[in-house]
């Protein structure tokens, strides 16, 4: 049980680095979607007994994170007619190194935190910290709106992963995290609507600089 979960979290960590290193938007979207599915099935592994509620949450998470939002993002990508992240603020190599350093620091740092014995052996906390860091790097370091949204999704995946620690004690709080997906939905709809409304050169957030102090 635990080793399967650790393997999945390790996979999610690898996907973080993949998202950091790839310049193609479609690759980032795919990495994010796969990560969403991987994390979505996680509650089922945590449960020793089958629970309808948890199964439903897992199903909804997989559907939303793995399919609905990625397909919306792909649509936005088509609408905006962009394929690649050309000149990120933080280059691919530095962000990859930052992400890897962060992953290592997360694994090392999580040992210092006081964890309940049943969570001590798992990669839940380091995996979550690594994903949050990756999300923040993408949010800060990329200029294309779609990569930023992917960064937000990865950040959100990290928070969800942390929430799994609490899924037994306060399932409601953890499930409310699905509201964050709503924010992502608003982001993506914003991109699409804006694209339809006006001709916007390349959806480069660096062009959103009229308002500057």
């Amino acid at each position, binding site marked *: 049980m635990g080793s399967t979960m650790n393997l999945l979290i390790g996979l999610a960590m690898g996907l973080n680095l993949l998202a950091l290193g790839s310049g193609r938007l479609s690759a980032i979207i795919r990495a994010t979607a796969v990560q969403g599915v991987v994390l979505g099935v996680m509650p089922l592994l945590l449960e020793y007994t089958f629970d309808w509620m948890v199964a439903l949450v897992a199903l909804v998470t997989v559907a939303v994170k793995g399919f609905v939002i990625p397909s919306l993002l792909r649509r936005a990508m088509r609408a905006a007619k962009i394929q690649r992240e050309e000149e990120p603020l933080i280059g691919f190599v530095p962000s990859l190194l930052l992400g890897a350093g962060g992953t290592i620091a997360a694994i090392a740092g999580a040992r210092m*935190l*006081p*964890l*309940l014995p049943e969570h001590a052996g798992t990669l839940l906390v380091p995996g979550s910290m690594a994903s*949050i860091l990756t999300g*923040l790097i993408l*949010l800060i370091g990329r200029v294309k*709106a779609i990569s*930023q949204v992917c960064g*937000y999704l990865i*950040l*959100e995946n*990290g*928070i969800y992963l*942390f*929430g799994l*620690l*609490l899924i*037994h*004690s*306060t399932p*409601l*709080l*953890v499930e*409310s*995290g699905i*509201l*964050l997906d*709503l*924010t992502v939905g*608003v*982001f993506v709809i*914003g991109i699409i609507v*804006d694209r339809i409304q*006006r001709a*916007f050169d390349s959806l480069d*957030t660096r062009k*959103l600089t*009229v*308002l500057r*102090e």
Partner: protein
Amino acid sequence: MRENLLIAIPLVGAALAFFWRGDRTRPLLLPAAGILHTGLALWLLVNPPLVSPGAWFGFDPIARAVLPAVSILFLACAVYSVSYLRIRTERSNRVFVASLLAILGLLSAGHQARHLGMLWITTEAVTLAAVPLLHFNGTSRAFEATWKYLLIGGTGIALSLLGSFCLGYASLRGGGTGDLTFVGLIAQGAGLSRPWVLIAWVLLLVGYGTKMGLAPMHTWKPDAYGEAPGIVGAMLAGGVTTVAFTAILRVRAVVSAAGEGAIADRTLLAIGLFSMVVAALFLLGTRDFKRMLAYSSVEHMGILVIGAALGRAGIWAAFFHVWSNCMTKGALFLSAANIRRAAGARTIDEVSGMSAVTPRSAAIFVTGLFAVTACPPFGPFFSELRVVRAAIETGRAGVAAIFLGCLLFAFFGLTRVVFAVVDGRPRTKESKAAGKVNERAGVVLPPLILLGAALWLGLATPHVLTDAWTEAVGRLVTQP
């Protein structure tokens, strides 16, 4: 049961507004809901209901100390918006009215939330509900401002969820049973796992601080306030920020119960002073009078958290300042919106001599300026004075000195912009418009009434309010 109506009335109103046919009559729902809400809130202020300790929502002393201010501010905005939306007939106001009502309902819920998760859900919902309001003007600059708001605010809100998880884990690690009401967490007190409490405190401070607009998480604020209609600015600066502030207060109480109150106070002081310094510096540089209001808001958020860090007297002063800030910011935003509409521009390079074009709004704007820069006898003067006194009494003279210095610079910055706008000779574009500008009672009275309320707060603070604040302080600070 009545306190739930505070949440239900606006939400029902929002649903009604969404399905209401007829753009002309729909805005009337706003004052209707506003009157009901304000009446109920004031009634509850005078007759506080009993709150069962385990309830997830309730009109507890903290809600009682803050929520009526938001309610009054909303009522003024609602009256104003009837006239405003009559001018803006070129756009459908369906989403605007519905979102504004939804925000009121969610703000009421957020103020009354006594559960960590519920607090987060309402704050998240408020964040999302404000999006259509910010984008109401539909320009590319409005889109840009909305995008920044959502990106920065969304990240902040995500971090505050993480902070909530950490606090939940602190409780679980300390042997908690998953009871995440603030009462339950405070009762667990020293049983909470301290490292997790500290992590949670940092994340929640960053998260809710982003919603409040504390520096350095304030960068969305000037853009959002600059591009959104004045009503939205007033509701964001007076309503949404106070929800985030009460959230920080409630969390601080938990952190303090866990025995880390000193660290929490120190971080609050640092971030508050930093906000004030940043705001004062930007106020000296800005040339746009709507962005000026945003920086002024950053400054006042700094004052609030400094107050929150200064013990009983400081928290009391912070509650006082929430009220005076609500009233003066409302007056300023609404009168600034009038001036902005008449002038057709927002920077002091393009606008001048507005006292000749819109004399009433300009008068309110100038008076509001004196109120917000803490000139006696307006409310902000007395609340800020109490913050300074609390600082000196707790032996933090340095804090008081920086605080006063920032106020001075903010005063310079604000007067510079305001008098450039009001004074002088109208530019040609405005003088042509001068004959046509009709300052209806609907757009002048609401800011005037808010200003009057600010004056009243300063001259004769009602006893019911001081009692409410004292009781709320008693809830938040366990040991004297």
